C-alpha cells in the first residue's frame, strides 16, 4: 500500500522522465544529440524564475484544477479504482482545460479549446468501449482486478489497436497533434499562461503520459514482463510515427479515429461475445 502512495506522489516526476526520455529518443531518430533527459525539470526550474502574471483568476484556477484532476485520475488508476469512473473523471479534467481555454479572449486559446473538444468526440467513445470490453471479460470495472488477472491483450487485440490510435491524440503527437499544433496555433490553450502557472499545465501534460501508459499496462494484466515490452514498443512506435508523419487537420483526425477506432472496438466486443 505504501508503495502505491509513493508512486502516486512521484507520478509527475515519472511523467517528466518519460517526457524527457522521449525528447532524447526523438532527437536520436533524427540523428541529433537532443537535450538531456532531465531537460523538462530544468525547464521547470527556469519557469520558476519567470515573472508570473495572470489574465484573470478563473483562467488560472481552471488550469490548476485540470492539473489536480489529472493527478487524481492517475491516483485512482494506481489504487485500482473503477475503470469507467476513471474515464469520466478524466473527462472532467479535460473539461476544465477546455473551459480554461474558452475563458480568455484570445483567438489561439479558443481554437485550441475547440479542437480539444472535437478530439474528445474521437477518443472518449473508444475509452468507454475499452472499459466495456474489460467489463465483459472480467465481470467488473475494477482496475485492481484487471491487473491481477492474466494478460488480456489477445482477446482485446483490436481494442488495443484502437487505443494505439488515440495515443498520439492524447499525447499531442503527430499526426494527431492538431489540438496543440505549436507552429500553427502556438500551443492552443497553453498560450495565455506564464511562469509558475504554466508549470501546472506542463506537469498536467506529464501526468497525461503516466495515465496513458498506465492504461496501456492494463493490457498486460499481471504479466510484468509483457507490460514492460509493450510499454517500450509503444513508446518507440509512437515516437517513430511522430517523427515520420505530418499533421492531419482536426476534422480528419476525428473522422479517422472515429471510423477506425470505433469499428475496431465494436468488432472486438462482438468477438468477445461470439468467440
Amino acid at each position, binding site marked *: 500500500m505504501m508503495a502505491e502512495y509513493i508512486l502516486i506522489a512521484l507520478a509527475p516526476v515519472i511523467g517528466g522522465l518519460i517526457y524527457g526520455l522521449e525528447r532524447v529518443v526523438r532527437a536520436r531518430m533524427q540523428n541529433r544529440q537532443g537535450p538531456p533527459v532531465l531537460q523538462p525539470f530544468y525547464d521547470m526550474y527556469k519557469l520558476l524564475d519567470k*515573472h*508570473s*502574471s*495572470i*489574465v*484573470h*483568476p*478563473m*483562467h*488560472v*484556477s481552471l488550469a*490548476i*484544477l485540470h492539473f*489536480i*484532476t489529472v493527478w*487524481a485520475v492517475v491516483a485512482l488508476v494506481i489504487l485500482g479504482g*473503477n475503470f*469507467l*469512473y476513471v474515464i*469520466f*473523471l478524466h*473527462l*472532467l479534467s479535460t*473539461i476544465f482545460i*477546455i*473551459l480554461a481555454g*474558452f*475563458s*480568455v*479572449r*484570445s*483567438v*489561439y*486559446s*479558443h481554437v485550441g*479549446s*475547440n479542437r480539444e*473538444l*472535437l478530439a*474528445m*468526440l474521437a477518443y*472518449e*467513445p473508444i475509452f*468507454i*468501449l475499452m*472499459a*466495456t470490453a474489460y*467489463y*465483459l471479460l472480467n465481470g467488473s*470495472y475494477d482496475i485492481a482486478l484487471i491487473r491481477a488477472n492474466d494478460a488480456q491483450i489477445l482477446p482485446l487485440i483490436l481494442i488495443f489497436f484502437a487505443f494505439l490510435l488515440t495515443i498520439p491524440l492524447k499525447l499531442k503527437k503527430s499526426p494527431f497533434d492538431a489540438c496543440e499544433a505549436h507552429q500553427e496555433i*502556438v500551443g492552443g490553450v497553453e*498560450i*495565455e499562461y*506564464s511562469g509558475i502557472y504554466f508549470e501546472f499545465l506542463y506537469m498536467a501534460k506529464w501526468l497525461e503520459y503516466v495515465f496513458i501508459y498506465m492504461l496501456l499496462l492494463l493490457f498486460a494484466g499481471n504479466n510484468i514482463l509483457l507490460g514492460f515490452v509493450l510499454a517500450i514498443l509503444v513508446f518507440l512506435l509512437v515516437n517513430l510515427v511522430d517523427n515520420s508523419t505530418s499533421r492531419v487537420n482536426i476534422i480528419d483526425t476525428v473522422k479517422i479515429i472515429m471510423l477506425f477506432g*470505433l469499428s475496431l472496438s*465494436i468488432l472486438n*466486443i*462482438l468477438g468477445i*461475445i*461470439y468467440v
Partner: protein
Amino acid sequence: MELKIRNFLVTSFVVVLGFYSLYLFSISSIFSYTFSYEMHIVISVLDTILLVYFLAQGIKYKDKLVYILASTQIILYGAILYFAPNMQGVDILSDELSRVMFLVINIVGGAIIIYALEYIESEDFSRLKKNSFIVILILFLGVMNTLVSTNNIEIFFFLFELTTLCSYLLIRYRGDRVAVENSLRALWMNQVGGVAILFALVFSISFYNTVYFSELLKVVDGVFLIPVVFLVIAAYVKGASFPFQSWLLGAMVAPTPVSAILHSATMVKIAPFIILKLSPAFSPLLSITISLFAGFVFVGASIMALNRDFFKEVLGLSTIAILSLIMALAAMPSEEARYAAIVLLVFHAISKALLFLQAGILEKNYHLKYISDIDTLADKAPRTLFFIIIGFASLTLPPFGAFISKFLAIEAVTSQILINPLYIFVLLSLIIGSVFLVILYFKIITKLLNKEAFKNSLKEKLDFKYRLSSNILFVSLFIGIFLVNSLNILEILIPLILIFISPFLFKYFLFKNAPRVKEYNCGEKGEFEVGVYNYALSDDTIEKMMYISIALIIVHVVVGVL
C-alpha cells in the same frame, strides 16, 4: 397587497406539496382507491366535454387536423363507452414509481411556480390573465399528480387529454399568431397520442377484457402486445420523440416558465413514465425495438441541437434527446437499467428546470435569447452563469445524478449485450449521443464564459423568488447525489471538492493580488469577437431521419402482433 397574499398563498401551497411528496416518498406505502359508479360517469362526461372543446377549437381556427383527430377521438371514445361493460377495479394506485414522480412533479414543478410568480409580473397582461397563468400551472401539477397514480386506462386517457389542454392553453397564452399556430400544432400532435391510447383501450377491452393497467400487465402475453404498443406510441407523442418533436420546439413561444414546466416536471415526463409502467409486460423483441428506436432519437436529437442558436431550442432538443435515452433504458429487461432510467428522469428534471429558469432570467434581465448574442456574461451575471454551468455540468459530469445514471446505464447495457448482441447499438448510441451532448453543452458555455481581462465581476441583483427557485433546484441536485448512493464516498467527494470548494479557495487566497496582464494572443491586436461553431445537418438528412423514425414506429406495431 393582493399580490403579496397571492404570492404567499401559492408559495406556501407548493412548499407544503413538496414536503408532502417527500413524506410520501419516505413512508413508501401503497395507496389504492376505487371510484364509485357516479364518479366514473362524471369523468366520462367531463372527458366528452373536453373532446368537444378540442373539436370546437379545430373548427374555430379551421385547423383540419385538430378537428379530424378530435372527432376521431369522440367516435372512438363513444364506442368504448357504449360497448365496454362498466368495469370495476382499483382506479387509483400509487406505487413506488408514482412516488418518485410525485417528487419530481411537486418539487421541481413547485420551484417553477414560485419562479413564475415573479416572471409573469414582468409581462404586459391584465391582472386576470396573469393570475390565470398561475392557476393553469397549478392545475397542471394537479393533473400530473393524478395521472401518475391512476391505474385505469380510461381515466388515464382523460388526464392525458387534460395535460394536452393545459399545454394548449399555456402555449397559446401570448395570443399572437405564432403562439396560436404552435398551440394548434401541439394540440393535434398530442391528440395523435390520445387516439393511440383509445386504440390501446379498444384492443385491451376486446382481447383482454380489461381497462386496468395492473390487469393488463398481468394477462398480456408476449404474442399479442398491441395495446401496450399503442400506449408506447402515445408515450412517444408526449415525449416529443421523432417525428413528433415540433410541438415541443414550438412551445418555446410561451413564457419561459411554461417551457420549464413542460420540459422538466410535467408533460414530457409522461413518456418515460408510461414506458417504466409498461416495461414488465414487454417481450424481449419489443424491448430491443424500443431501445433501438430511442437510441436513434437520442443521437439524432443531440446532433440536431448542435446547430441551433436559440438558447431554449437547444435546451428543448437536448430534452428530447435525454428523454429518449431514459426511454431506451426504461424499456430494457433489466433492473439496473430501470433504476438508471429513474435516476436520470429525476435529475434531468432538476437540471433542465434550473437551465430553463436561467434562460428566462437571461431573457428578462439581459434581453438575451440567442447564444450568438451572449458575450461577457461572466462580468455581468456571474450568478446566472454559475447556475447555467452547474445545470449543464450536472447533465454530464461526475458526481451529479445524471452522470451516475449514465454510469449505471453503461454497465446495465453491457450486461444485456451478452444476452442480445443488438444491444451493442444501444450502447453505441448511448456513448456517442452523450459525447455529442457534452460538445453541445460546452459549446454554449464557451460563449458564456469568456471574461474581459482587468474586469472584476459585478454582483448580480436578482429578485428573491428567482433566487429561491434556482436555489431549491440547486440544493436538490446535491441532496440527490447522496440519495442515489451508487458511488462510493470517495468517488463523490473528489469531483465535488474540485468543482465547488477549490475554485473559491483559489480565488480568495491565491490570486487576490496576483499581477494582471492583458491577453497575449501572440501580440495580435484588433477586435476579438467570440464565435460558436456549428455542425448543421442538411434538411434532407433531417427529413430522412423523420422517415426512418416513422418506419421504426411502424415496426413497433408489427412487433406487437408477432
